[in-house]
């Protein structure tokens, strides 16, 4: 590359006034084009492209304290407005959603506390957020009833994780619930690590009950053809990752198994690539596996999702305008009675 090619775009300095909208600020970030601000503005451009692209299926990977930190309604609104098509989540994220759906809460707390005292008061800590034990226990009791009800209805037939979340959503009435919104809008939620959450441990309680006649059966392998089928049928595939881990890998591996490769990717994480773990692995590394196309629009934001993701969504929505109606491939397919 010629020397002058390195010097094409000068950094334009960020100019702030008292009336900037979120997207106007994002444009200022784009003018800078540097560091975290540059990456965030690039992420916004990519998400806008995904939304405007005809027939691009948008996968959202959720991990970490998405709901406890306050992004529950944000995710629910994305589902209700068809601004995401498929969710792949840790079991824990949906447990957190279900806790609030049955009347529990997450509380503003502090990281500088006596954790032994919290233990004695039956309070759990998620960094600077507190959850009372009883909110978990009430959910456990409710879930044990729901499990029995679902199992009775299925009459010995196992469920895939997206069927499990659909059945849970059907039985929750909270309109702010991610699970409920996904059920109503027919957006699949896959939980590839469902056992590693309260959903799994409460199954033990449910299954061990004396004279239990209907034990809920989940079959993790049933997810694979469904999610790979979505990737295979979708003309284009994009992912937005909050955190990483199993949800990110599930989306990427589905893109690989369906021989498509991702067309768009935005990853928000604080993890590092040097461990060799997936959460911090670069998207260039993802290309080497064939999970993302080399030509894909992609960016990795090193940042805390609660500070980044609401900005990203607010800016993209502002760009689209209030009259924007997304033409979602999966929703259209469902309307036509196709797909799984």
């Amino acid at each position: 590359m010629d020397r002058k090619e390195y010097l094409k775009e000068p950094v334009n300095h960020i100019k702030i006034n008292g009336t900037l909208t979120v997207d106007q600020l994002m444009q200022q970030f784009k003018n800078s084009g540097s560091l975290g601000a540059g990456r965030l503005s690039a992420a916004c451009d990519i998400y806008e492209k995904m939304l405007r692209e005809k027939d691009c299926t948008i996968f959202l990977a959720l991990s970490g304290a998405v709901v406890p930190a306050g992004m529950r309604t944000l995710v629910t609104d994305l589902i209700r407005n068809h601004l995401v098509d498929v969710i792949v989540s840790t079991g824990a994220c949906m447990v957190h959603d279900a806790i609030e759906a049955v009347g529990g809460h997450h509380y503003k707390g502090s990281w500088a506390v006596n954790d032994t005292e919290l233990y004695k008061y039956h309070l759990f800590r998620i960094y600077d957020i507190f959850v009372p034990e009883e909110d978990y226990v009430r959910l456990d009791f409710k879930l044990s009833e729901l499990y029995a009800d679902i199992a009775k209805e299925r009459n010995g037939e196992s469920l895939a994780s997206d069927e499990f979340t659909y059945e849970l959503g059907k039985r929750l009435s909270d309109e702010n619930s991610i699970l409920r919104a996904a059920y109503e809008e027919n957006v699949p939620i896959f939980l590839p690590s469902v056992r590693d959450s309260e959903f799994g441990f409460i199954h033990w309680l449910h299954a061990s009950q004396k004279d239990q006649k209907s034990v809920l059966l989940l079959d993790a392998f049933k997810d694979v053809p469904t999610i790979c089928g979505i990737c295979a049928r979708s003309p284009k595939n994009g992912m937005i990752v909050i955190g990483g881990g199993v949800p990110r890998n599930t989306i990427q591996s589905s893109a690989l198994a369906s021989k498509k490769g991702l067309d768009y990717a935005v990853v928000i994480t604080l993890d590092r690539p040097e461990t060799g773990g997936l959460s911090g692995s670069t998207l260039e590394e993802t290309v080497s596996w064939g999970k993302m196309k080399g030509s894909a629009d992609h960016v990795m934001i090193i940042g805390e999702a609660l500070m980044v993701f609401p900005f990203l969504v607010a800016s993209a929505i502002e760009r689209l305008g209030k009259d924007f109606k997304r033409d979602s491939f999966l929703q259209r397919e469902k309307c036509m009675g196709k797909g799984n």
Partner: protein
Amino acid sequence: MENNGEEKFCGNCDSHNCYDYPSKVFCSTRYWQNKSPIVDTLWRCEDYNKVSQECYCVREAKKKAAESAES
């Protein structure tokens, strides 16, 4: 927890979890036995364990019970 090894409360057993702090607990042993699992914290539990969990629910429940008795 100020447990002198004599008091027998549901809040001293291995399977107690808070249900309505500090007054009610969820007993998983009773749930498994198909008995009503939500019981008073100060209810005597047959699974009393002298090496109890170190929590404040029994202390708080006793304080609350004493206040109720006074009023």
